């Protein structure tokens, strides 16, 4: 594996992440996920390919992007491609929210040509290929903060373990050599062989368990949970340090029965360091629009007292349970 080869797809690297494991961390968000959780608050993390993000509030309608699109995916309502590229900004319609520039997502291949043309920062390409050594160079900048806080690097996503395993292993080895601790945030829906390869280099897993019922799991995430639960058990056998994270979403699993079942499914397979209940939040809802998608929007957060009941329910089974990150 050549560590300089750009084989890892990353859509964000977030510094001063303080809720993705212990201490002050840098979280690397990989792009691409085998699941399609209906409530996903990082929709840009789902597809593996780079995608166009359009911040329409920043667009001044100049039209430069129209002519730069090799696929003819961008259309200006105020003029054809012929008038585009002029310096004068096109007038925006007075009615709020109107924007003369539209992008046909079915024709967009994420080449990024329009992003380079855009001067106002309205067009952004999310996801780009990174080499392991580039990631290392960035994340090690915050070493003094990891040192003072017992923090390190978190690999998240998307699904980090769905990336090219050779490249991932190469990154993990490099992080280990640098003396940085690694937390992996995973949905668990990956081949055991992948987990087995990364296991020696991971200090802590944040392992999501969303539903104990296989059919419900398939309904809300697009996949069953057999592999997830089996991997959990094998991580237990291997003695992995692990926090179980349970997103609590009304309309999906925020009721006592589903929580009981999750507690049961976890408890029979592993003794996690902690169980973390993560109440649903809608902060990702605005991202769907920027990606040209509709937000499902039928979910909501459990109220505080229900959340407290669930915490007690897990606690009663001997878990160290916390609400949040």
């Amino acid at each position, binding site marked *: 594996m050549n560590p300089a080869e750009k084989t890892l797809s990353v859509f964000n690297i*977030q*510094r*001063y*992440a*303080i*809720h*993705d494991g212990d*201490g*002050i961390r*840098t*979280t690397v968000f990989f792009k691409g996920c085998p699941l399609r959780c209906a409530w996903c608050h990082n929709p840009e993390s789902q597809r593996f390919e780079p995608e166009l993000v359009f911040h329409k509030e920043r667009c*001044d309608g100049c039209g430069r992007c129209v002519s730069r699109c090799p696929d003819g995916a961008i259309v200006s309502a105020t003029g054809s491609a012929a008038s585009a590229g002029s*310096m004068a*900004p096109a007038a925006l319609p007075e009615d709020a929210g109107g924007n003369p520039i539209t992008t046909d997502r079915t024709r967009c291949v994420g080449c990024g040509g329009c992003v380079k043309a855009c*001067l*106002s*920062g309205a067009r952004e390409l999310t996801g780009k290929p990174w080499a392991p050594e580039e990631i290392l160079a960035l994340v090690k*900048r*915050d070493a*003094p*903060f990891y*040192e*003072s*806080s017992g*923090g390190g690097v978190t690999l998240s996503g998307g699904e980090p373990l769905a990336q090219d395993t050779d490249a991932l292993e190469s990154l993990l080895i490099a992080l280990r050599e640098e003396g940085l601790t690694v937390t992996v945030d995973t949905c668990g829906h990956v081949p055991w062989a992948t987990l087995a390869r990364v296991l020696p280099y991971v200090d802590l897993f944040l392992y999501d368990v969303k539903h104990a019922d296989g059919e419900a799991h398939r309904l809300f995430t697009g996949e069953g949970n057999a592999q997830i639960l089996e991997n959990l058990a094998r991580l237990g056998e291997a003695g992995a340090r692990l926090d179980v994270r349970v997103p609590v979403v009304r309309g999906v699993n925020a009721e006592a029965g589903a929580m009981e079942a999750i507690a049961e499914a976890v408890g029979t397979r592993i003794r996690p360091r902690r169980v973390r209940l993560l109440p649903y939040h809608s902060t990702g809802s605005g991202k769907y629009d920027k990606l040209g998608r509709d937000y499902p929007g039928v979910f909501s957060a459990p109220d505080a007292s229900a959340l407290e009941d669930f915490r007690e329910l897990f606690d009663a089974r001997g878990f160290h349970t916390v609400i*949040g*990150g």
Partner: protein
Amino acid sequence: MDDIVLAYGADRGSTPRVQKLRRESLEAVPRLYLERAKLVTEAYERYEGALSAPELRAMALRHLMEHKTLYLGEGELIVGEKGDEPQAAPTFPELCCHTLEDMKVMNDRELISFRVTAEDMTYQEKTLIPFWEKRSMRRRLLEAMTPEWKDAYEAGLFTEFMEQRGPGHTVGSENIYIKGFLDYKREIREAMGAVDSRRDPRALARLEQLRAMDICCDAILTLGARYAALADSMADKEPDEARKGELRQIAENCRVVPAHKPETYWQAIQMYWFVHICVTTELNPWDAYSPGRLDQHLISFYRQDVAGSVLSRGQALELLECLWVKFNNQPAPPKVGITLKESSTYTDFANINTGGLDPLGEDGVNEVSYLILDCMDEMRLLQPSSNVQISRKTPARFLRRACEISRKGWGQPAFYNTEAILQELLGAGKSITDARKGGSSGCVETGAFGNEAYILTGYFNLPKILEITLHGGMDPVGGKMLGLPLGSAESFGSYEALFEAYEKQVGHFVDIKTRGSNLIEQLYAAYMPAPFLSVITNDCISKGMDYNAGGARYNTSYLQGVGIGTITDSLAAVKYNVFDKGRFTMGELMEALAADFEGHEDILNLVRNSTPKYGNDDDYADDVMRRVFALYRDAVTGRPNARGGGWRINMLPTTCHVYFGEVMLASPNGRQAHKPVSEGISPDKGADVHGPTAVLRSCAKMDQLSTGGTLLNQKFTPGVVAGDTGLAQMANLIRAYFTMDGHHIQFNVIDRQTLLDAQARPDEYRDLIVRVAGYSDHFRNLSRALQDEIIARTEQTPV
């Protein structure tokens, strides 16, 4: 957030007494108080011409202390007030003789106003102006300056601290806790005996100076004796037995201090306060005559009194709270004009450093350190500036408690790095013991407390010099040729050529500024010595030399660089876009700047959205910062000053970044005309987008240890510092920054929406306190431009 300061909303203070005193302090309306001016005038009428300058100054102070109206408020435990009641602000006509117009403005202006009566106006017109008009330091000073100095000053290239105030930004010696002023008088007599007029050509000056110091000791002794008598006479008439007992104790305290060394914790605080009143009455140090390392000074008294069962922790806290009220009772003397712009606040910058190391290098955190934290948390007052020094040895508990207070969102305490301060002081030639006793005063200025006269001379506008460089030495705002004729923007064929020209222009203006200041220092030495401050500053007595003439052990002149974020991003914008990438030409950039980017949105977008910027841990921009910082530091550091010491820099703005922005057109980083430049060493507003660790990494690339202090504002929304995790990581963030040799960091923990609401409905947010620069202030007291600027400072949001 529910924990935003409600300074007026609820009575704060650990006892009803303190609550009452605090309320009185906050409710009193600041007013001009001319008694000081009247008494100083009387003294000058009587002694001017008959006495040497130091003796004249000393007699003025003695006359003041003999005749000033005393104030001893109901319930007070610590006594002494500059005016005749809280919030009465004396004037200093010998420094700045206000015109009638000045006084009208003070009364009428919306912010930082002072009530002025018709009687005051008449007295100013009939008596003070005729006497002081020709004598004031402000006049002497402006007369001594060259036309080029005046032009640069008026164009906003730099400001001048001494224009309306005297030097004196300092911390007195800890000797006042181990000596009384009778001891000082003995020391002065011995020093007079040691003057050798056979060989010493300065013998006469030394004897005059020492006689003046001796008179100043009498002045403070008089103040103490008068308070003892007042307290006794009030006790005689007091019907309430408890209060009668307190008044008797106050009288007893005032018979011990300031004449003798303090015997108790209470007397130690009273001793400090008498000294504070005399220092700030003698002259107008304006800012920052500070108690310094108060926990180190009080701990032996605290332990002794607690062990002797004469003091409980609760009583000790109450006495500290009474001291806090005293600080808050004293608004900074009224300012006008540019001086008001550079320091637009009532705050007098008395700064307390809690924690740090003791003189032996051990952890300095003690019981009083925690008392001080409790006191600042309870009192939530703008004055004094209550801050902490964090060393590697500082226990986690202390840091956590300090963070707990800081995250409540009113800007105190700020955090200073003890190891950085030590290295700064050692690098400037201080002994290790003197360095360990030192700290930061004013906003963030490093000093060897008790041993150093470190005088702030003015702010220096780094971005404005680029504007002048790009215009071939011409100021495009005023149309005057101020700089060197080095060719203008289009003549620079490379970034190196531009940088070289900028470097020369910086050197040119540093020359103008420091030449002026060296004359000003001599003016102060000649006409406005500070013999009282000299008594309590180490080595002035043994040298027989005044504080203002180089009497202190160490003598530093500071020039405060402003706008490092703006100048960095501006230079980076030119380097990156014009020379590296060829995205536009210098000519196109100059047109865009002249048009304030109107019609040049393409250039504006490029420089704003896709150009490397300081504050993102981006080496391209940060390398530019390193270089421009070094250029400025090297242009200043090591120049000799007029007091036998040298020049150094620090990087702090107070409110001057707003004024420095006002005098400028648009800058190449996309900052629009007349908007504020960046403050402290913080990134320009909105420039940093990679979170706090990236900001701190960028800031740490500056060689902060070669300065005399830097100021970094970090604004957080409440969510980031919420909960145990938020608190713990805030502490860890500070530790890491300090490991990287950061000098100072302070936090504003307020969400944007709250600030916008406060701007829209100021009356509902009378109490909102925010961190401005090296101090906090009421949001409603800030100018609209400064409010906007604070709102625009990047908020770091949680992940």
